[in-house]
């Protein structure tokens, strides 16, 4: 039973991450290939504050959101001058830079490659309580994104993607929307990172490689770009499937490669046959 709660918690965390990535990639059309960097910044911020400075976890998670959003904006500004594909390449490079920073500079607990020993508040201790807490955060995040989708701001994001000139003609600057949505995406990645650490009880740099950025692309690609339902559907289906494989008794040495192989196959199938994913309202145009 605890293991089922663990899987559901994992899905919730990835839904939060997907919501942010979908705002950036799906709604605004920014080809982000390095979102795992901001996930890592959030995870490390929350873990360091909580483990070394004994900041209560909810406050540490809020701080993680703020720090990730700031780091995200700071890294976006220089990259904004790049067009389409080169922007994707730049963010991909950033992912590698952040991985090396985590790997070489991030603090670790003596005798391990990463950090553990989070102190969670009483209401989030135990698999069931943790799941309910994370679920609550996920629901709040999803509601916020739903409101945002229907708001004038949501329309402006889609206009940034499809009709930047129209946006300019009514006196609004697409670049400003790119910056603000990138901050929101960074904050959600930071929140997801903090909760990811709480779910796994352990973080190390290998959680935040390019493969994680690709995984998020697979999640929202399969679920559907620019769609709230897509951000929920992708992680639920794919994590459900790969975790299900463990239940059928697949040895754990095979689940890792099988998962990444499956993601690769899904990317190929998506690009060949259905670039809008299952319920997407937009597709990979470029």
């Amino acid at each position: 039973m605890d293991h089922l709660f663990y899987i559901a918690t994992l899905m919730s965390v990835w839904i939060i991450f997907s919501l942010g990535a979908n705002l950036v990639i799906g709604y605004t059309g920014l080809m982000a290939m390095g979102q795992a960097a901001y996930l890592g910044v959030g995870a490390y911020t929350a873990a360091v504050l909580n483990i070394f400075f004994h900041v209560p976890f909810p406050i540490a998670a809020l701080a993680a959101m703020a720090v990730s959003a700031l780091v995200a904006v700071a890294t976006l500004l220089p990259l904004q001058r790049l067009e389409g594909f080169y922007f994707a390449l730049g963010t991909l490079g950033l992912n590698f830079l952040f991985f090396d920073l985590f790997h070489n500079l991030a603090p670790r607990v003596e005798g391990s490659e990463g950090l553990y020993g989070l102190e969670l508040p009483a209401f989030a201790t135990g698999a069931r309580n943790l799941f309910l807490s994370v679920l609550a955060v996920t629901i709040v995040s999803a509601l916020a994104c739903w409101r945002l989708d229907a708001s004038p701001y949501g329309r402006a994001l889609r206009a940034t993607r499809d009709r930047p000139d129209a946006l300019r003609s009514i006196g609004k600057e697409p670049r400003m929307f790119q910056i603000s949505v990138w901050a929101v995406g960074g904050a959600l990645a930071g929140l997801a990172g903090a909760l990811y650490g709480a779910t796994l009880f352990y973080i190390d740099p290998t959680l935040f490689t390019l493969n994680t950025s690709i995984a998020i692309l697979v999640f929202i690609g399969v679920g559907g770009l620019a769609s709230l339902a897509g951000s929920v559907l992708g992680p639920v289906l794919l994590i459900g499937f790969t975790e299900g494989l463990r239940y059928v008794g697949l040895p754990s040495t095979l689940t890792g490669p099988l998962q990444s192989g499956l993601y690769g196959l899904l990317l190929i199938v998506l690009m060949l046959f259905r670039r809008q994913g299952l319920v997407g309202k937009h597709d990979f145009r470029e």
Partner: protein
Amino acid sequence: MIQTLIIGLGLAGYYALVAVGFALIFATLRIFHVAHGTVFITAGYVFWYMHRIHGISLAISATAAIAAAAALGLAIDRFLYLPIMRRGGGMFSVFIASLGIVLVFDAIYLVLTSGVIAVARTTSMELWTVGGAAIRKFDLGIMGLVALTYFLLYLWLHRTRTGLEVRGLTDNEQLAAAVGMNVDQTRNAIFLVASAMAGLAGVLTAYDGGITSDSGNRTLFIAVVAVILGGVRNILLGSITGSLALGIITAYAGFFYPEWVTFCIFAIMIILILFRPKGLFG
């Protein structure tokens, strides 16, 4: 110090073989072919499997491995890139699909080799001692081989009809098709030649230091940075100068700060695309 330089030149040889193919494909077809790294390790694994596991002779194993690489590269274009482009997919879609290929093959190789490094060499390397520095004859051999390959490529690009068509594609694809050039056939030739060169690099790497399932990505990204650095206005000159620079940088960085090599490479890449946004096009 000289020793590190020679190691850097040897590395530059591998990068140059991978980079020139990548540059050829990118400049002519605007495909960001990350799966070029997969083609590279596939040749390495085929070579390792035939030569090391089954003891088949060096020449036969190497030829088969290079042929396998060429066939794989061609197949990826025929059955993946071309259909995606026919269905209106752009540069980013093709890139994503290419990443898909990388993930699938990496997973297969990881399972088949259990993550153990595959070294195809069965004998030890001969060393030359010149003024206190130990130089491997193998590195000199690589340099010779790269020079020969580049010479043949030069002849192909500048002295044959297909080469002329390839250069025509670099300048203007529509015009090339309009004057009656068979773009599809030229495209096949590009993928075959580029993949064969990556295959040669794969064979040499497997023979030398060995390969793991992630060697392909690593080499590919270094080659990409080399291409961005060198530019593709002149494919051969750009690839070789970029590769020389990257080979020397990675050798020295690897010697002094091994844990920061990747950081260096990607920092260079980001700085280059920021300040030379058209760098890739020369």
